């Protein structure tokens, strides 16, 4: 038995005083230092230990088991549903872990609707639940009241019941995981130890070297920041960014509730989410806890959070601001009048609890692109914590995380997205949408016009309706093209239901038809343009690309990048401009991750270099049967099919500007992507626009480029069809031969080619759009693909079938869906159904594989 004395004041522990649990002397070196003993840090320590890591040190400035972060005041309930597949999978994994740890109580949970709009949202949600095999049911107010007897059924219209919803003891879970890691001899825990600095090596790319703490320095090559709301502050110590902000989530606890006196354990009644008021109510022992996301966004800078010593409760349980919560009292009282209206029960606890919120709502995971060895595992809810701990541990171990977490990759942020201004703006705007009905295409109101193309004014003058991607304002359609609606009449496939008409316009379909009839001009400035040069440029890119890049100068190659297991990492085009000079072009949304992937795989000796030229080159797309005539009218160069064949690129002169034209297409038409110096973009746009007037040219938005044109051609999109869960064979993207050179994922890819595909990507047409109310409904993506009689379809690897992309195909007069099916069901003519808004719509497999529905022989592209 040892007896260790520790001081709880940081200054007293400085200088290496004895510290921690039974550790005779704190380590001065570690394989990895994990900062933060909340749910994520504890989970990460455990999973690293499980994977065989030793010499881990877990540091927290607060005491154990509740060091004072957000885990300590969490509401700890877990609804199994989410619109993000990644979040849903992390939640499922976390729930399984909590159950294994014995800290999960399945209480059930009910979301209640007060409005008709919410009831429709429930139907949408129910379909998502079905897609992922989550138990859920819409129930009547009376049925809700039977499960939650203190809820007034007259206030609600219906409930969405999740029987597998539960609550967990996240502090206990953390303690068990920490102890397991200690039991494996892998972990030293240092409580009450504050991190004072993170030192990095200065030579070349910076890399972490040492963590300075109030209980001594620790030499290490790996630091993981699991500091929740403090993460940005700790990252700054190493000169890196973790873009999140602490934001207040108000919560009160009311009791003692006489009805709960008999409850054994923590909870006996389902959790209620009163989603239309942005609130929840849950039993917590003898009390009922009422939480709110309805109040004004209250942002707290990480530097303003009080220390453990200063805080009256804990650092993240800040003083309750009553006036912000007052409007919620009435709404809670309305829903649970007897329980909360009881004068004998009081508000016993009330906090402004701090939680982390990121610009896009996803966690921030992975190794910092700014500092080597500095990892982030930040911005997690309780419901994802253990899953994130496991995924990041797998990643750190050099494995591919079992759950595809690329959407949470810390690499995804552009510099502007890491600024306080941006983070605070996005956090403020998204806070009140926590339980909101958020359309998949919904646009941000604030922090717009961050990146503007040189054509911006010209497109604005044509009535462009802008959607934002990676900060760029991209025309989605042009109001000036409303004149085309009359020309095409019913062929623009107007939509009846408001939901599918939101963030959409039939003008998109009119632009599509006009492009197919004449030609279209597209602002593609959001493309990321990455030049790779140097003696080993070819080798470096060959190592990443599936396609053969050792091609003649002036060839354009469409290729995927894979991970070691053959999952998709990127999907892009590469132009060989000259022997040692390649131009990689990829979508703006994935620009930073793709860039980092390339950079991470460049030779250390500098013999290949990447230059991000996104801000130097703007991109204009010109496609349609009249694209050549239009281009020819602006250039003295020969752009005939013979002189400028498909799949090639060349410098040409347009209106006196020298630009790079690349003859490829994502919309299935003859045409070019034209790269011109940014400051000359407006000039080239205007020249093409004017020249095209004689040939039926219209400006065409991303609605055509990204959806309708693409879907008619069955072109796959990264993040939709191309994810880490599927492979080239399943996506129908294999080529006759595999290049001789090595590339990442080749071994897996060769194996995949030798085996029958488990799943096959298909195109579907909807046979009947008529819903039970007589309206025609149009799927937007994410819906479950089920059998004709409504049974779920899951392939042999356990992957359920769902709609990966959906949209109009105006040239075909159809609404087209893409989605994977188990290969045995991927048979043309197979009749299945898609569940949308909780109704089944009949669909037929139109294509199994990659044959386009429109112009299947690709005559147009190659004309």
């Amino acid at each position, binding site marked *: 038995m040892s*007896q260790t004395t520790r001081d709880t004041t940081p200054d007293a522990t400085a200088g290496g005083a004895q510290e921690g649990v*039974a550790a005779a002397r704190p380590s001065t070196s570690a394989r990895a230092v994990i900062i933060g003993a909340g749910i994520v840090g504890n989970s990460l320590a455990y999973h690293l230990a499980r994977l065989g890591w030793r010499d881990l040190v877990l540091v927290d400035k607060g005491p154990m088991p509740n060091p004072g972060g957000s885990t300590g005041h969490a509401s700890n309930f877990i609804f199994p549903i989410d619109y993000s597949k990644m979040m849903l999978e992390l939640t499922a994994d976390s729930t399984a872990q909590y159950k294994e740890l014995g800290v999960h109580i399945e209480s059930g949970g009910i979301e209640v609707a007060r409005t008709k709009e919410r009831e429709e949202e429930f139907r949408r949600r129910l379909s998502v639940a079905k897609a992922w095999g989550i138990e859920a049911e819409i129930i009547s107010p009376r049925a809700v009241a039977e499960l939650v007897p203190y809820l007034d059924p007259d206030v609600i219209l219906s409930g969405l019941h999740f029987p597998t919803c539960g609550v967990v003891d996240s502090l206990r879970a953390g303690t068990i995981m920490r102890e397991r890691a200690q039991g494996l001899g892998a972990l030293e825990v240092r409580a009450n130890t504050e991190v004072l600095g993170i030192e990095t090596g200065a030579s070349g790319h910076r890399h972490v070297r040492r963590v300075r703490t109030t209980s001594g320095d620790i030499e290490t090559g790996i630091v993981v920041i699991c500091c929740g709301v403090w993460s940005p502050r700790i990252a700054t110590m190493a000169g890196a960014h973790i873009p999140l902000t602490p934001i207040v989530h108000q919560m009160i606890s009311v009791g003692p509730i006489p009805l709960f006196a008999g409850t054994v354990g923590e909870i006996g009644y389902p959790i209620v989410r009163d989603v239309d008021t942005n609130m929840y109510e849950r039993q917590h022992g003898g009390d009922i806890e009422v939480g709110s996301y309805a109040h004004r966004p209250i942002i707290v800078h990480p530097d303003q959070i*009080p220390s*453990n010593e200063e805080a009256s*409760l804990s650092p993240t349980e800040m003083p309750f601001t009553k006036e912000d919560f007052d409007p919620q009292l009435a709404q809670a009282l309305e829903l649970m009048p007897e329980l909360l209206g009881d*004068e004998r029960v009081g*508000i016993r606890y009330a906090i402004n609890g701090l939680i982390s919120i990121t610009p896009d709502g996803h966690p921030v995971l992975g190794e910092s692109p700014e500092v080597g060895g500095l990892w982030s595992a930040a911005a997690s809810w309780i419901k994802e914590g253990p899953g994130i701990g496991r995924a990041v541990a797998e990643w750190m171990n050099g494995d591919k995380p079992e759950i595809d977490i690329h959407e949470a990759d810390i690499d995804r942020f552009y510099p502007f997205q890491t600024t306080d201004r941006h983070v605070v703006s996005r956090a403020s705007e998204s806070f009140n949408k926590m339980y909101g009905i958020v359309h998949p295409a919904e646009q941000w109101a604030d922090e717009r016009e961050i990146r503007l193309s040189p054509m911006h004014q010209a497109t604005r003058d044509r009535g462009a309706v802008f959607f934002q991607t990676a900060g760029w304002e991209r025309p989605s359609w042009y109001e000036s093209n409303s004149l085309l609606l009359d020309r095409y009449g019913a062929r623009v496939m107007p939509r009846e239901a408001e939901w599918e008409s939101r963030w959409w316009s039939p003008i998109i379909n009119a632009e599509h038809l006009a492009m197919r009839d004449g030609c279209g001009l597209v602002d593609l400035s959001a493309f990321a343009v990455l030049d790779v040069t140097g003696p080993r440029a070819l080798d470096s890119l060959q190592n990443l690309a599936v396609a053969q890049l050792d091609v003649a100068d002036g060839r354009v190659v469409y290729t995927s990048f894979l991970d070691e297991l053959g999952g998709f990492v990127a999907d892009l085009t590469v132009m060989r401009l000259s022997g040692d000079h390649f131009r990689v072009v990829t979508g703006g949304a994935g620009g930073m991750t793709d860039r980092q992937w390339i950079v991470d795989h460049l030779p250390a000796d500098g013999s290949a270099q990447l230059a991000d030229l996104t801000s130097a080159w703007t991109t204009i797309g010109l496609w349609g049967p009249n694209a050549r005539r239009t281009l020819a009218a602006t250039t003295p160069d020969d752009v005939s099919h013979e002189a400028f064949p498909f799949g090639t690129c060349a410098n040409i002169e347009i209106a006196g500007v020298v630009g790079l034209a690349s003859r490829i297409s994502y919309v299935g038409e003859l045409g070019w992507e034209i790269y011109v110096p940014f400051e000359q973009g407006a000039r080239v746009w205007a020249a093409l626009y004017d020249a095209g007037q004689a040939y039926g040219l219209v400006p065409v938005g991303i609605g055509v480029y990204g959806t309708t044109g693409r879907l008619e051609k069955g072109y796959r999109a990264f993040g939709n069809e191309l994810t880490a869960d599927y492979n080239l064979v399943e996506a129908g993207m294999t080529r006759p031969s595999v290049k001789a050179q090595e590339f990442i994922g080749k071994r897996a890819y060769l194996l995949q080619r030798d085996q029958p595909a488990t799943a096959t990507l298909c195109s579907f047409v909807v046979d009947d759009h008529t819903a039970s109310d007589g309206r025609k409904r149009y799927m937007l993506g994410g819906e479950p693909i089920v059998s004709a009689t409504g049974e779920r379809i899951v392939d042999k690897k356990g992957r359920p079938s769902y709609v990966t992309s959906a949209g109009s195909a105006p040239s075909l007069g159809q609404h087209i869906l893409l989605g994977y099916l188990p290969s045995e069901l991927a048979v043309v003519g197979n009749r299945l159904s898609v569940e949308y808004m909780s109704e089944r719509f009949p669909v037929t497999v139109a294509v199994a594989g990659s044959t386009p529905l429109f112009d299947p022989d690709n005559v147009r592209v190659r004309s």
Partner: protein
Amino acid sequence: MDILVCIKRVPMVGGRISLTPDGRGVDTEMLGFTMSPHEECAVEAAVRLVERDGGSVTALTLGPPEATDQLRDAIAVGANAAILLKTDGREWGPTATAAAITAVAEQHQAQTGRPYDLLLFGNEAADTGDYQVAVRVAHLLGHPCATGIKQLEVDVHGVHARREYRGVTELFELPLPAVLSVKEGINLPRYPSLPGRMRAKKAQIDEVDPEWQGDGLKLDGLRVPISERRQAAILGHGVEAVPALVDLLERLGVLS
């Protein structure tokens, strides 16, 4: 019975106190505010008396406009009315504060023809700790006064109050109207109910603008005393720790 309870808005400190850069105030930027703990007990005592015998509880504070928060807190737990003696945020000393409160009490008597039967205070404010206002008000009104009260009963004969002081129990019998200051422990204040909070939100707060009077009190600066180091000892783990734990509990006198 009509009771006036006087409360004060003070920073809610739970841990180490930080001072403003000029060292002349408590840094409250990240702090909440509350009424002094003794005063919470005073409000509770008043509400209990009125719940039993009828009458009214009026909460009064002298402070900045934000101090209405604390008045509403008092209403949320049962006070019927509230008066804000509005200041510009400057700290009023005990003499001036007592004079302003006395003026309210006198005006009440002038308007209703009856004095407050009981004026309740906390024993001292949690921030300035002057221990004076109750006594000064009693003196100005000519009422009997007892301070540091931990037990209180009111009947037809008047107030029966009890205080513990250095092992001695003192019992006071005071005729009404009277002034008392109470200490934490006299009762366990209730938490506000939701209906209480909603009543408080809507309640009218009467405002009075007392004239600033210099008070002869000057603040030179504040100093945070060096706190004792809190020591935590780990006695051991699992069953092995039991003997050490028993030993400690015996030393503390918990076990005998």
